[in-house]
């Protein structure tokens, strides 16, 4: 017994080593979440900012119902619609990123090694500038007088400028642009380890290109695809800049509504309740991903993907 205690396994240091990380998680992740959860069950301050310490479920009621001046409650899908749009835009973003990333990642992974390093480096270049500035750049690009409309008009393809800015389209373009590297990099990491001799073997056995991609390459890069999907979908769901600057407030996503509650509307409890809902949606999404990953891994690859979640 004594020997066992002295011989800790390599890399399995004392539990004390985990303390800083634990403290960090408690102070900066768990505590704010608990505060948000508590705030969501409190009443709105009558004047100014903050909350009144009076228990109520009113914020959650407000999610689904509006109260008219006469005090009648009526079902109001406004916020549900915003949640639905947010999830939809995030899903579209993740799917578009996926479709764009697979060819890019595979292309990079099939270059000679010295090129790969450079190309991966190029993928990360956008991170050098603030997301705010890059999103503002898209305001210029998608503008009625921007380069896209200018080029299309100059070529005589369109006579009137297409209004792209301040539409859901612009929001999604901004989101795809912001999160594309988070999809490319994990897929590339999986693809780089892929043994391309397996693809040759599949060709040799009579599989055409798309079949090889679907049945041999994709199963091999699936861990990267799942990781990328999570890394894009979840931040996209909570993104603020793209819908604010490119969606023009008309196509708000949930983060913009939450920001408004803590800002202009001064309804902290309702903002907190919306945040709790986002948390619930993210957790549901993770569970769904985990189930999908588990099911497909049992049917297909033997690799364990649960570890990613």
């Amino acid at each position, binding site marked *: 017994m004594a020997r066992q205690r002295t011989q800790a396994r390599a890399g399995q240091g004392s539990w004390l080593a985990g303390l800083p990380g634990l403290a960090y998680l408690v102070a900066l992740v768990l505590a704010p979440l608990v505060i948000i959860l508590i705030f969501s069950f409190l009443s709105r301050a009558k004047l100014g900012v903050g909350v009144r310490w009076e228990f109520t479920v009113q914020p959650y009621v407000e999610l689904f119902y509006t109260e008219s001046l006469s005090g009648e409650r009526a079902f109001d899908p406004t916020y549900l619609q915003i949640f639905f749009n947010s999830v939809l835009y995030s899903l579209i973003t993740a799917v578009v990123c996926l479709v764009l990333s697979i060819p890019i990642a595979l292309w990079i992974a099939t270059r*000679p090694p010295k090129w790969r390093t450079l190309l991966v480096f190029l993928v990360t270049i956008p991170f050098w500038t603030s997301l705010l500035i890059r999103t503002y750049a898209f305001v210029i690009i998608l503008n009625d007088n921007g380069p896209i409309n200018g080029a299309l008009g100059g070529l005589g393809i369109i006579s009137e400028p297409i209004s792209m800015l301040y539409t859901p389209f612009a929001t999604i373009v901004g989101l795809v642009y912001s999160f594309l590297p988070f999809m490319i990099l994990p897929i590339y990491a999986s693809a780089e380890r892929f*043994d391309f*001799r*397996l693809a*040759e*073997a*599949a*060709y*040799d*056995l*009579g*599989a*055409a290109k798309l*079949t090889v991609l679907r*049945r*041999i390459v994709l*199963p*091999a890069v699936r861990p990267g695809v799942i990781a990328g999907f999570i890394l894009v979908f979840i931040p996209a769901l909570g993104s603020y800049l793209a819908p604010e600057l490119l969606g023009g407030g008309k196509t708000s996503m949930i983060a913009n509504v939450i920001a408004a509650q803590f800002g202009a509307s001064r309804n902290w409890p309702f903002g907190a309740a919306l945040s709790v809902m986002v948390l619930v949606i993210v957790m549901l999404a993770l569970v769904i991903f985990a189930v999908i990953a588990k099911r497909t891994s049992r049917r*297909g*690859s*033997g*690799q364990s993907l649960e570890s990613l979640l």
Partner: protein
Amino acid sequence: MTANKPLALQVRGVSKSFATPEGGEVRALDNVSLDVAEGSFTVLLGPSGCGKTTLLRCIAGLESPDGGEILLQDQRIDTVPVWKRRVNTVFQSYALFPHMTVAQNIAFGLQMDKLPKSEITRKVEQSLDLVKLSGLGGRRPQQLSGGQQQRVALARALAKEPEVLLLDEPLSALDLKLRRGMQLELKRLQQETHITFILVTHDQDEAMSMGDQVAVFNEGRIVQVGAPRDVYLRPSTSFVADFIGEANLVPLTEGSGPAVIAGWGPVPTAAWAGDSPEPAPGRMTIAVRPEDVTISADPSGRFEVIDATFIGGDLHTVVQVGDTTLASRQPAATAHALATGGRCEIAFRDGSLRVVEA
């Protein structure tokens, strides 16, 4: 030779070059031609980097030749995409799909042929039986030993019943004992299935024991094609003589009259192999096997024994002759008096000397 049988595969004047990372160009195949009879076992033999694997990949369709034609059953296939060729490959790395079971691996190629499910199940079972892996269809490749993975790779390719089966150094990853067993196994499979096999190897013993026909490669060219016995007994170039078995390569001195081995003397007529080519300018090298060289101890002999070593029941001797050395291998009992540093005389067995191209 098997010239009377119909040809499964014809390679005509195929060339292929690769760009090197330094910006140069390597000629991997240089105007290579080869006929492969139906149902035969052809071995492409040569040192690494000689182009034999490149030829195999050109036949499979994984490389496209720069020039020349490849015909399968008299139909050109060099322009047909790899997945449409009735040719399958057993890869050196086996290339088994890790996310599929053994049975799924074998079924993959059959699914590509759009066979009905029942037919696929039947053929998978049949192929597993053929390579003696019945009952292991549910395993994953990583759960199998190297030898078993090798058999799965074979079963996967054979299940497609290809016109020609290509094997790229299939045994190189196996240990020696297993390799010997698999050589016999491959031979059996080839005879049972009547499928034309083309196997690439750098191991001359493998080539000799398995092939009906051996094509010896060197530097992107086929230097000699023939039955293993013919290639061994009648090498046409010094490279073949040296690569297959062992050979002494002895220069002849140029001049009129009978050929003279430098430092030894004129070659007696009886020593020539009956079908040896005549020495000619540019073809002034003799190949002779060590077992055809007899060294006898002679205190007044003209030559010095550089080294004499017993290996098994044989005495291996190296003798200085002129500017070169000559190796001999003879039963120890006939040469007991030979020792390093001693004097000796050399004789060549009748019919053992052959002129080869340099």
